C-alpha cells in the first residue's frame, strides 16, 4: 500500500526527521489559508499515487496566498495518469542548497533492508542506478543489530563531506530505518533529501510503501489507505479478498492461484487474444468469491468472454461450479463463459455444470483457445 506524500511526511516528522512545515488541503480556500499561515512563497503539490506529477502539471510554485489559491484550483480535480487529484500538499518553497537521495528497501538478494544514498537526488533514482551507478552507495542492514551509528555515518559521509551535515544525515538514516520498522514498510524514501542555505538537512519529499502483509497488525497504518485513489474494480476486489488487476484486453480470466493466473493470461496472448485482467480467487473455495469475481469482471465493458481456469487442490471444483451457477443467476449478464476445471471434486463439478446448462472441459489449452475465439467473434 502506498502512502501519500503528506502522510509519509507526517510519519517522518513524528519520528524526529526534520521536515519543512506544510499541510494538506482539499479545497483552494484551504490552500489559501495554509499559504497565508506559512507566510511566504509556497509549493502546491498534487497528492496522487503516481510518479511524474511535476511533468503533468501537478506541482506548482506560488508567490503568495492568492496565487496559491488559484494554482490549487487548477490542480485539484485534474487527472494525472488516470487518477483524480483530491488533495494537495502546501509547503513553503524551500531554499535548497543541495539535493540528495536516501532510501531503504527490502532487498531480495541480500534478504535484508538495504539503505541506498546518492548525492544525485531529486531525480528518479532508478535512472541514477542505471546511468551513473557510481553515484549510488549501499549498505545492507543486518536486522539482528540494526543500522549502527558508524554505518549510517559512513553513508552520510558519501553525501556530505562536512561532518556536521553528515551527522544530521546519519541521524536521519537511523530514524528512517525506525520508520521502516514501525510502519511495516517495504520501502521508505526521501527524495530529495536537501541541505538548506543555513546548513540544515531536511526531507523535502517522502515516500512510504507499506507491506500489505503488515496491515492486519497495524490498523493505524491501514487507516491511511486512500480508497479514492484506487480503481473502483480493484477496491471492490480488495474488499472481497480477491487479487484483481485490470488490464486492457477483452478475455476475462478467473483463476485460482497467482502463478496459474499469470500463465493463463500468457496463454490467452499465445493464442492471439488479450487478457482483460489478472484475477486470483485464492485457495479457499467459498462460492461467494466466484460471485464477487464475476460481478467485478462483468462490470468491465471491454470484456467479451469469460474464462474460468481452475486446478482444484485446496480449491474444490464443485464449489467453483456452484459459484458460477449462483452468479450467473444473480448477475444476469450475457457474456459467453468458458470453463476449465480439473483436480479436487472435478466429477461433482462437471455434474453441477451440466445440470445447469454449462459446458466445461479439463484441458487448459482448449479452454483458452475457445475463450479467445469467442472474444474475437463478439468484437
Amino acid at each position, binding site marked *: 500500500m502506498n502512502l501519500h506524500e503528506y502522510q509519509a511526511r507526517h510519519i517522518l516528522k513524528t519520528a524526529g526527521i526534520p521536515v519543512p512545515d506544510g499541510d494538506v488541503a482539499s479545497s483552494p480556500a484551504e490552500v489559501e489559508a495554509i499559504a497565508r499561515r506559512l507566510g511566504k512563497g509556497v509549493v502546491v503539490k498534487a497528492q496522487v499515487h503516481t510518479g511524474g506529477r511535476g511533468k503533468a502539471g501537478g506541482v506548482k510554485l506560488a508567490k503568495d496566498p492568492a496565487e496559491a489559491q488559484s494554482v490549487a484550483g487548477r490542480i485539484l480535480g485534474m487527472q494525472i495518469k488516470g487518477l483524480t487529484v483530491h488533495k494537495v500538499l502546501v509547503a513553503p518553497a524551500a531554499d535548497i542548497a543541495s539535493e540528495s537521495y536516501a532510501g531503504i528497501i527490502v532487498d*531480495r538478494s541480500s534478504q535484508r533492508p538495504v539503505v541506498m544514498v546518492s548525492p544525485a537526488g531529486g531525480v528518479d533514482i532508478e535512472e541514477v542506478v542505471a546511468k551513473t551507478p557510481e553515484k549510488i552507495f549501499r549498505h545492507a542492514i543486518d536486522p539482528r543489530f540494526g543500522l549502527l551509528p558508524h554505518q549510517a555515518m559512513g553513508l552520510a559521509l558519501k553525501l556530505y563531506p562536512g561532518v556536521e551535515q553528515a551527522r544530521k544525515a546519519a541521524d536521519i538514516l537511523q530514524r528512517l530505518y525506525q520508520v521502516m520498522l514501525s510502519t511495516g514498510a517495504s520501502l521508505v524514501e526521501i527524495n530529495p533529501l536537501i541541505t538548506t542555505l543555513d546548513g540544515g538537512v531536511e526531507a523535502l519529499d517522502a515516500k512510504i510503501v507499506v507491506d500489505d502483509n503488515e496491515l492486519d497488525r497495524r490498523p493505524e497504518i491501514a487507516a491511511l489507505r486512500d480508497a479514492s485513489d484506487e480503481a473502483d474494480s480493484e477496491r471492490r476486489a480488495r474488499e472481497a479478498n480477491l487479487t484483481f488487476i485490470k488490464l486492457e484486453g477483452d478475455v476475462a480470466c478467473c*483463476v485460482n*492461484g497467482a*502463478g*496459474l493466473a499469470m500463465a493463463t493470461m500468457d496463454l490467452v496472448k*499465445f493464442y492471439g487474444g488479450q487478457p482483460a485482467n489478472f484475477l486470483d480467487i485464492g485457495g479457499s473455495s467459498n462460492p461467494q468469491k466466484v460471485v464477487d469475481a464475476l460481478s467485478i469482471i462483468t462490470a468491465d465493458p471491454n470484456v467479451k468472454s469469460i474464462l474460468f481456469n481452475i486446478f482444484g487442490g485446496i480449491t474444490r471444483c464443485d464449489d467453483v461450479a456452484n459459484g458460477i451457477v449462483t452468479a450467473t443467476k444473480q448477475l444476469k449478464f450475457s457474456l459467453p463463459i468458458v470453463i476449465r476445471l480439473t483436480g479436487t471434486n472435478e466429477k461433482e463439478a462437471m455434474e453441477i455444470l451440466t445440470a445447469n446448462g454449462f459446458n466445461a472441459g479439463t484441458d487448459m489449452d482448449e479452454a483458452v483457445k475457445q475463450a479467445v475465439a469467442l472474444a474475437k467473434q463478439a468484437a
Partner: protein
Amino acid sequence: MSIFVTRDTRLVVQGITGRDGSFHAKQMMEYGTRVAAGVTPGKGGQRFEGKVPIYDTVADAVRETGANTSVIYVPARFAPDAIFEAADAGLKLIVCITEGVPVLDMTRVLPFVREKGARLIGPNCPGAISPGRAKVGIIPGSICKQGSVGVVSRSGTLTYEIIHHLTHADMGQSTCVGIGGDPLIGTNFIDCLAAFEEDSGTRAVVIIGEIGGTDEQDAATFVKEKMKKPVVGFIAGQTAPPGRRMGHAGAIISGSSGTAAEKMAAFEAAGISVMKRPADVVPLLKKRL
C-alpha cells in the same frame, strides 16, 4: 531417491488443530507420511484423530517423538514465531505453508534459521512431495506419480498443472518442491537445483519461475556452470504489467527488471529448454532425456 522429503521424514505439524492444519494433517497421513506429532499450545496431552500426540511446544514434540521436520499451518501473525520455534527446537527442515508473513519479519527469521543449521522452505508455499514416499504441505498427492523428474517452482496451482502433464505422460517425479511466491524465502531455486543434481533418483529437472526478482537468472547461471542434468523451464507473467503485484508478493516487475522476457532469455542462454506453454513440458523433456 528424492530431496528434502524422504521415507525418513518424521513430521511435526504446527497448528494441527486449526482448520487448514487438521485438514492437511489428515491428507498427509492418508498419503503415508509419518506424522509423529502435532503442536497447539494448550492442547498438549490430547491426540489428533485419536492417533497423533499433541504437544504444547515444538521442543516437547521433538523430545518425545524424535521428529525431524516441521510443517507450519498457523495464521500469518503467528507464523514467524512458529518458524523461530521450530528452528529453536533443532528441526532441520521447516516447511511454512502460511501466506501473508511480513517481509520484515522474514529478515529476522532467515538468519536465525541459518544459524540453527536448519532449512526453511517457504513461507507462502505449497510444500514438497516425494511421490510414493511422503508429502509435507498441500500439493495434492493424487496428481503425482513416482519417478525421476525433479520439479521446483515459485507457484502453487501452476505447478500442479505442470505435474499433471508429466503424470499423464507417465513421467513420474522424484520430488516436487514449491519454494513459495514471497520475495524473501528460505530455500531458493539454486538450493533445489543443487539438491536435484546430487540426487541419484533425479534424471531431469523442471523449473517454474515467474516475474519479479532475479532468482531465475541466478538459477540459470547455476544450471550453466554446475549442472549436468537436463533442465526444462517455464516463466509465468509474460503479459504482466510493470509495477503491479501479481498476487504473489514477490511477483512484481520493478522498472525494467524482473520481466519474463529477460528471465526466458537467461534460461535459453544457460541451455534450459524454455516452454511456451505449460503443455510443452512433456515434449521438451522427452527431447532432453
